[in-house]
């Protein structure tokens, strides 16, 4: 790992390859991704947006208990998944349901947590997606452990570990970066800096020039990227994954984006920010600019757009249907999965509930 400060510091401005108006921006370090990758990203963005909208609607209908939306952050959601191989792992937060679905997890299973059915609904081993983490920054260490185990076995696994700007203040963020650096573990730490941690703005979170400037303190290269430019994200994250896979150790990528919606449906952003602050970000929407760019290059036409929208609509329909089905929560699950073998005490406690239920039925 280099100890040369210049190579560890991020660029002064976030990397942008396609600007908010859809124009390509020349960059010394990165070309544009190839057209196929961009078209694939476009389709995924449309699906992700539709997924967010659908989940928000389901909350309003009372079919989901809570939803932390990634509306406006879909470029981050999509890019951090698109750069991974099948054998790689994704470590998401509660806000990254769209990324999880992009990774191939069934949307209904992805929403098990937020529906209140169980703490996590998909199979992490089958999908190589860790359970969504709620205690902030804690999962970054698990990501380091998963990557380190793979490396000890000589596997080419890279781990994408995602967190928010607020989470960077937690001690576990620090320990994860440091462990990854010292052990040269193939983890890409991906910060979605959406400028808020619930109500707390970035300026209250840090006085650093940028969050990517935290990398050098661990000997980890830091980079900044426009979080609403999927082209830049694909290149910057892709390069980080490639370097990690090549044995160059961890990387720290800060995407600058914005949480255009509330923290969750339970939040009331009017208490801490003005609509004026939000408006300019709507013009920086990640989908619009990619669509303009692709149309301009002839890589996308009205028919394609309708096609992707249609696909996304169908997926949303399946999701609605899936979430409409009654789920049967089984009380026995409460006792079965505490240990590999229930303790005698848990068996007694389960029997007590069984007895209660059988008496209820008798009544």
């Amino acid at each position, binding site marked *: 790992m280099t100890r040369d400060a210049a190579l560890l510091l991020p660029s002064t401005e976030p990397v942008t390859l396609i600007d908010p108006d859809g124009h390509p921006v020349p960059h010394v370090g990165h070309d544009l991704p190839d057209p196929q990758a961009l078209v694939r990203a476009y389709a995924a963005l449309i699906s992700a947006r539709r997924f967010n909208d659908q989940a928000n609607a389901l909350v309003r209908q009372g079919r989901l208990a809570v939803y932390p939306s990634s509306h406006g952050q879909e470029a981050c959601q999509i890019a951090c998944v698109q750069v991974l191989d099948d054998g790689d792992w994704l470590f998401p937060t509660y806000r990254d349901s769209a990324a999880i679905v992009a990774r191939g997890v069934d949307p209904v299973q992805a929403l098990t947590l937020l529906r209140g*059915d169980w703490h996590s609904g998909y199979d992490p081993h089958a999908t190589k997606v860790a359970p969504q983490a709620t*205690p902030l920054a804690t999962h970054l260490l698990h990501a380091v452990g998963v990557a380190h185990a793979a490396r000890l076995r000589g596997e080419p696994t890279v781990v994408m570990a995602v967190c928010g700007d607020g989470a960077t203040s*937690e001690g576990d963020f620090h320990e994860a970066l440091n462990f990854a650096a010292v052990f040269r573990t193939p983890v890409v730490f991906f910060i979605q800096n959406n400028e808020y941690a619930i109500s*707390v703005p970035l300026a209250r979170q840090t006085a650093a020039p940028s969050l990517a400037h935290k990398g050098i303190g661990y000997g980890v290269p830091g980079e900044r990227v426009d979080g609403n430019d999927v082209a830049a994200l694909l290149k910057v994250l892709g390069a980080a994954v490639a370097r990690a896979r090549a044995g160059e150790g961890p990387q720290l990528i800060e995407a600058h984006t914005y949480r255009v919606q509330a923290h969750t449906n339970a939040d*009331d952003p009017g208490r801490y920010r003005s609509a004026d602050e939000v408006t300019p970000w709507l013009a920086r929407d990640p989908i619009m600019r990619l669509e303009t760019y692709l149309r301009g290059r002839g890589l996308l036409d009205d028919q394609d757009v309708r096609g992707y929208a249609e696909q996304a609509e169908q997926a949303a329909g399946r999701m609605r249907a899936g979430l409409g089905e009654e789920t049967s929560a089984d009380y026995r699950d409460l006792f079965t999965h505490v240990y590999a073998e229930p303790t005698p005490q848990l068996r007694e406690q389960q029997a007590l509930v069984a007895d209660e239920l059988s008496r209820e039925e008798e009544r």
Partner: protein
Amino acid sequence: MSAEKLTMATALNRAMRDAMHADPTVVVFGEDVGPLGGVFRVTDGLTAEFGEQRCFDTPLAESGILGMAIGMAMNGMRPVVEMQFDAFAYPAFEQLVSHAAKMRNRTRGRVEVPLVIRVPYAGGIGGVEHHCDSSEAYYAHTPGLHVIAPSDPADAYGLLRKAIESADPVVFLEPKKLYFSRSEADLTAPVPPIGRAVVRRPGTDATLIAYGPAVPVALEAAEAAAQEGRSLQVVDLRSIVPFDDETVCAAVRSTGRAVVVAEAAGFASVSSEVVARVTERCFHSLHAPIRRVTGFDIPYPPPKLEHVHLPSVDRILDAVDELQWEYA
């Protein structure tokens, strides 16, 4: 003296406001407690009224919050910090156990750390994982901490005022599910000192011992039992540490039978302690072993299953039924 109807959240908010007016060294901080007023709005309006220096948001780091509070308390302030949810107090565990609880002892009383750690705690609100833990046993087991759990707005106000005035660190557990339940409270009434339990309902056949979120359930159970002709007394601990042996033992002796009700997992818990110490002290007054109705020894369930886990009226009444009435 004027009673008014208000929620526990409002009562807690008033307690902080009144304390901040009464004592300029009282400061409130934590995650989202400023402009937002806390995710439960318990600190609503404090920044507006007292300014950024008296009520402020911190970076997102609980060990940092408590560690800084300890330092401020060492230097003349009375910090009241909020841990956003029960499980998010765990990152601050080392600061709590190794410092807040021990600073006075370490310095033979030369350094006090008068601070309050407010923890919205326990379940019953359909919260997802990590938002519903009953963590009182961790704190109650740690010498040097006072541990308080109010069960109604009046106590919430009075006990928080006392906690803020205390020269010792207080873990103040606020039952989330009671935040928005409303009842009459006279905030000008004198409050008993920390460490006094109260008999919430008289009764002669058996005693229910509860605290925090379990108190309303115990009262409901007593009401239901009354319908069936059984007279249950209900004791509300209010203060877990210090523990009020006097009130609790007098109550249990008067009935000879008891059930402890608590949301937390039962193993090595506050309810174990209540059973153990009351039995040690009242053995020959007991007609039957004291029973416990607690959460099971499992991680807090997902929303759709929490009703199975939480102490219910029926489960309490079942436990009362098992108090060996044949020996009466």
